[in-house]
């Protein structure tokens, strides 16, 4: 055994091990989103599904983000062809009803779909408590850097994106995020 040579040969192991150890502390799936912490992209979209009282808005009404300043906005992208949206739907609808009267606006945004399909889907699912808007050319979805549906964005009262959830949003998580946002904005 030539130990001197052996030692030299193993010296290269250290940087490799360090590199891998560092790599393990990173999440490869986490692609930095330009959004959280930044101002939410503006949108101006027409309502196609009115929702139910007390959250109702008339069909055809244009929802502008700029008009919602001072309120927490929960923007949920969905589609009638999306199976995971079915799992998410009832819970989200329920949470929205619970926050009626607080400075929170729930909004569905239809992605890559037609208002006809969307309306039919909502009827099938037994209604949706909050209104949904149509995003005909998916321009808003592109602005928000959507990966897929469902995806839910939380826009704080100052107009900045606070959080986002990829995939079905669990009701308790939505409540938790909303409560913390309502506290920090010092809601009445």
């Amino acid at each position: 055994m030539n130990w001197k040579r052996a030692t030299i040969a193993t010296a290269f192991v250290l940087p490799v091990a360090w590199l891998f150890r560092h790599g393990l502390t990173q999440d490869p799936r986490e692609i930095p989103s330009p959004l959280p912490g930044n101002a939410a992209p503006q949108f101006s979209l027409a309502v196609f599904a009115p929702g139910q009282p007390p959250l109702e808005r008339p069909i055809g009404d244009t929802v502008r983000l700029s008009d919602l300043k001072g309120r927490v906005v929960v923007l949920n992208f969905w589609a009638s062809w999306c199976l995971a949206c079915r799992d998410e739907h009832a819970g989200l609808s329920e949470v929205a009803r619970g926050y009626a009267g607080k400075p929170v606006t729930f909004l569905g945004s239809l992605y890559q779909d037609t208002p006809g399909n969307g309306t039919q889907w909502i009827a099938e699912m037994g209604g949706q408590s909050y209104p949904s808007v149509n995003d005909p050319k998916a321009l808003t979805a592109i602005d928000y850097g959507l990966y897929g549906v469902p995806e839910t964005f939380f826009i704080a009262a100052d107009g900045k994106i606070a959080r986002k959830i990829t995939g079905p949003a669990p009701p308790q998580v939505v409540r938790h995020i909303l409560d913390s946002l309502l506290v920090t904005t010092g809601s009445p």
Partner: protein
Amino acid sequence: MQSVNGLVGHGALLIALPFIALGIIIVPVAVKRGRRDWLELAYGAVYANFALMTAAALAMITALVTHDFSVSYVAQVGSRETPLFYTIISLWGALEGSILFWAWVLSLYGMLVVAINKSRAGNLVPYAAMTLLAISLFFAILLIGPANPFLNVSPVPANGPGPNPLLQNHILMAVHPPLLYLGYVGMSVPFAFAVGAVLSGEAEQNDWIKVTRTWTMASWGFLSAAIIAGMWWSYEVLGWGGYWAWDPVENASFLPWLTATAFLHSAMVQERRGMLRVWNLNLVVGTFVLTILGTFLTRSGIISSVHAFTTGTIGYYFLAFITIVLVFGGVIVAGSSDRLRSKGKLDSAASRETVFLLNNLFLTAFMLTVLVGTLFPLVAEAVRGVKVSVGGPFFNRMSLPIIAALLFLMGVGPALPWKIASKADLKSKLIPPTVGAVFLAAVALVVGIRDPYGVVVFAFVGYAATANFREFSIGARARRVARGESWPTAFVRLVEGNRRRYGGYIAHFGVFFVALGVAMSSTLRTEHEATLQRGMTMQIAGRTLRLQDIWGREEPQRQVVGATLEIMDGNRVTGTLQPRMNFYRTQQEPVPTPDVRSGVLGDLYLNLMAFRPDGSTATIRAIYQPLVPWIWFGGGVVVFGAIVGGWPTARRRRAPAPVVVPTPPSPPPTREPEYAA
């Protein structure tokens, strides 16, 4: 309360641990005291490990099949709706199960190594068995610790989510992973022999290289088949019409393949000329390290990839293991390199040794290129904190010249003799291949390839294929002249007489098919996308497709939407294709099932991209790719070559001598006869 399956599986793993540890400790003690009889205990541990791992794997399969959701792994990947077939193969569908399967394959190899080689004199086999047990120890620890598939779930769920939709969509999922494990895990055996050779002091002899070569050949054959099967799976399932994307884990399977290929060639130089001994040790150890690196990349979640499973702490275990293997490998190779310095010398630049040397140089350069590209994102993130991804353009650009050079060498090597070639020799050997090169280059231009690398690949394949073919035809002609055999008999006897050499040439032909398939399909691919109503048609590569129907059906585990298209030749329907889209409850995005019609000259590939829920229109992507089936066929030829070249001959020698003993074929002039394996 834990179920019987859980108890048996978990129990088998727990009992295996002390057996493995015992086996590892006994070997050095037995060797030091010269007690050969104690070695039987170590071998017993190897067998026990195999028996216990088999028990654990069977317990898991039973749990999966009987929907025993009290077993954590079953609760994770099982579901009552999944068809039986996919339920069984979900054994390797997620992290814990795949580690269990890995451990089982490793224990199988250990058992085979001991059973086949234990009568061998010397300490090579004991130390090899010890090494294999040491690797087993790591996997057993994983199975008891962070990757335990037999944890008890309480309360017992009534049903589970089922396997990842991508893994239950095609029959190749039953083929690709086991082949990959057989190839990947099999590379532990050459490593074990290398360690055995150094520890037993036999590394200076060339004998261990022969044993190692056979095992490497077997694993290499499995790995080749696995890589091709993986390409095929990706082509048939992912719906993008491609088969290779330089995904980190595709690369991880390719890296050890490259070094193992290099070893299979350079081992010949060591056997014949006693050269490259340190280099060969490096290749064997390096191949094993690369398989562990590949496993680390796939199983630790360090790199984002279609193959990566989500994980917890297991990455740190792998990190520890890979560090130990690297240190140990470095010590083994560098520490013994003094003793192993070459005796032989290159006699001439124009010799087969030189070509093998160049072949090794290019294969290693290829490996390093792919390795750098694969690990670069990690480096960039560690050093600069940025996310980068290294994609196809880098790999294609870097690898194409290397591939071209390797194809060229495949034509030069077989034509050159060992030691030194004369000028006249060179001339007569190199002219026919050049004609072949010009011919195929012309073919490439005629069929419409304009990409320079495409033409170069065709030319070099023409060159190399002619050179390899001449090895067969010259040898067979010699036999015809000498013995009056018919052409087919002469060919078969020629190959039988030196299976190792001709098996290698057969594998070369497989590579040529793959190269042509890749060159054609990547340069002459045509693609067309259209949204059709029923009865409407679209055109692709001179064919007409008519949308006949859009349909849907409900299956227990998924909803399927499909489109039926007729392929029209004039007014005649020559076939139908049914691309489908599958919607699984557990998956956000639908999983496509493209439909492919393969012909000798190319594939018509249809994918359903979108449809109106009312069934009025379907958007179809049609792709025509020439020669894609040649890639799969070439893969089969490579594997056939590996079987011809690697099948052990030992048994035949012990068989009673046949009445007529064929003498070895008369060697062509200036060439020494080569060994049979």
